[in-house]
């Protein structure tokens, strides 16, 4: 402090500004770094089957397979597949199930591979776009938007 006090004010301000800015840069760097390591890659079910490593989180986006949903106790079992069908991935999930969750609906869930199965992280299930399974595409004659 004594050293700082002895400097002329302009230099003191410059030093302070540099210190403050570098602190901000370091913090922002830490934040950005952790965001990349903490992020869960977004995958489709078929990518998940090929790429998943045990113990890492993945955010999988897929369609709930018809007839695959059943509950036992507090756990929900269902399977997801790619939008075009194909690979089916079974998921075991606990936690809140959003109202729009349905067979055939597109959902996003964060899962971890443990052994051969995928376990959903608690409360990570969200359904995409509840602005609704509106009746098919608008009939001809309607202005498209």
């Amino acid at each position, binding site marked *: 402090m004594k050293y700082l006090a002895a400097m002329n*004010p302009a230099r003191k*301000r410059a030093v302070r500004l540099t210190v403050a800015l570098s602190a901000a840069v370091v*913090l*922002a760097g830490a*934040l*950005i770094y*952790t*965001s*990349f390591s*903490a*992020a*869960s*890659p*977004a995958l489709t079910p078929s990518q998940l089957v090929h790429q998943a490593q045990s113990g890492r*989180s993945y*955010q999988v*986006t897929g369609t709930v397979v018809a007839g695959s949903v059943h*509950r036992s*106790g*507090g756990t929900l079992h269902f399977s997801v597949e790619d939008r075009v069908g194909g690979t089916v991935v079974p998921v075991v999930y*606990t*936690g*809140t*199930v*959003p*109202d*729009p969750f*349905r067979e055939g609906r597109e959902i*996003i869930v*964060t899962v971890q591979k443990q052994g051969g199965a995928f376990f959903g*992280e608690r*409360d*990570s299930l*969200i*359904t*995409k*776009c*509840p*602005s*609704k*399974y*509106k*009746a098919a595409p*608008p*009939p001809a*004659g*309607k*202005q498209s*938007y």
Partner: protein
Amino acid sequence: MAPLGSACLLLALAVCVYGIGASLYGVRRGRPEWSDSGRRAVYALAGVLTVAFAVLEIAFLRDDFAFNTVADTSSVTTPTFYKAAAVWSSQEGSLLLWAWLLSMWSSLVLFLTRKRMRDVAAYATAVLLSFGGFFVSLMIFYANPFATTHPAPVEGAGLDPLLRFPTMMIHPPMLYSGYTLCTIPLAFGIGALLARRVDAEWIRAIRRFAFAAWFFLGIGILLGARWSYAELGWGGYWGWDAVENASLMPWLTGTAFLHSLMIQEKRGMLKVWNASLVLATGVLAIMGTFLVRSGVLSSIHAFGGQTLGVPFVCLIGVTIAGSIYLVVTRRDMLRSEHRIDSLLSRESMFLANNVVLVALCFVIFWGTYFPLISEALTGKAASVGPPWFDRYTVPLALVLVLLSGIGPVIAWRRATLANARRNFLAPVGIALSTVTVLLLVGVTGKPFALAMFGCAAFVLGCVGQEFVRGVRARRAMAGEAVPVALVALVRRNRRRYGGYIVHVGIAVLFVGVAASSSFQHALEPTLSVGQSSKVGAYTVHYVRPTATVTPSNDAAHTGATLSLGAVLSVSKHGRHVATLYPSEGYYASDEPSQGSVGSLIGGQPVSHVAMSGGVTRDVWSAIAPNIETPQLKRIVEIGNRTIPFVHPEDALIAVAYLARSYLQHPPPAQFHFIVSPLVMWIWIGGLIVFGGGLIAIWPAPSAVRRRVAVLARGRRARAARGLARA
């Protein structure tokens, strides 16, 4: 009616173009009559858009399904209250609401500043009309609310059941008011930079509007949180969802601005910072609107599949580039008139508070847009979850609450050790004893929550001390009674004491957040009738099932065809506490493939949460009944086979039969119970914040007197001149 609406939109666009031209010509050429005409164009825009909005609202209330947007988001069976609110449930309708609110608020601010800062206001007029013109063009070219189909369908799709909650009437208008009000400081900031008048005057002119933006946005956010908690079968009030975050970001920078503008007013400092904050707030508000509209990020709020991405990206890009250009080219004028004297001063505390708020905003920004950033940088989409947000926001929130206690009591310019001791001894004592007491009664294991309780106690101590000192001083000087002195104290200095009350509210709100997130008990049991389960200290007993078939008027008046639920008895240590009636509503689906009976209940089911709220804890419950047992499925199948579509009343009888069967043989149901302590204090804290905000924003009596005095002086002067001539 539709042609009238479309004509209004075209007229509105013409008015915008004319107004931009007139006000720019007026200010560049020094022709004030043209600037005045530009200002009147804003009033005209407000008038035209009011007519357009009324046309759409009437179409909704009259079930005019020729309007595509009415057919898509309303129906004959939608309750009237929700028909009125359905206007802003669609893309087109919400764009119209945005433009309309923008025109109303712009008219108000330009009317109030009509006698001042003509050059700044003229530029601001042009900026505001550009935003207005942008939204009107979106409606004309991309999403026309007045597009029609002929012949009109006989029935519409109905309002999404998830949106059938009373808050729907007020949450979107509040948020949009907040968003549109954020563009007013932005417009005046740009105006001040363009006109090279960067003193504190433009800040004084829009201070009240910045405050109103903060106020409405805050109410909107809180109502959204409350909606999520009380309606969605989820039980949380904040999920770090992209659209929630988008509304929080401008609120945070707006809060920072409301603090740092005081420093510019009082000491002529932080001008670059203030200009940047105003511009950032405006841009973040537009980005917030964009996020809801565009569907670029997956969010429960996004309108799926419709993209207005390109025009919005252009608008945001132009605004950001323009803002940066203006701040950089005007930086010489934005030099501070003073320097911060000491790190221990109110100025530096304000600066610290600004840094924390902006850091919070940055964290949220990064997390929200991370999927886009990651895709751009690594080519792989990835996202960060709530734990990542919590890791950064929780410590920042702690510092923020701590600063909200220090800020109001620390001295301006330079605090000495002696006055620090005088100001902080009591609050620190209160905080430490609060933490000690909590530790002694066994509140352990959650260090962050405990720290938050300590910080909140510190804030209450600081603010309480300020009130006590103020009242004591008044009593000593005027000998008033305590209540009189208290009221007089607040009335004399509304901004200051209103601000203190806001700080108390924030502390209370965070106590609610910390307690409810750290000490919550949640359970998702499957129960049969007669079974119980234990949640925290409470026992919840499934007494009996309920079922109502209510084609137009169910318990919650939301238009569900069928509602299945449960009667739950909640007790604590054998003593009855509350009876809860959670239910799930089943809505008509409009999908003929589900059959005549199936389509009556095949829509999206929506939870109707039941809870027993209290000042110490909420017991929250939701039910997901099993409607797909073989027996119930068979009723639907037989109904579908035997009842043709032309007899909906017969299909309804089949639904009633299903309800009776459900009551006679209730299958086990999936429940969700949450016992959260102190949740109610989040809402109470919110109310305190907004009460304090109202006190602070209310015109001070002295200001009114001053204005009256100025008017009177003017009149006297004119009278004197008149006498002199005579």
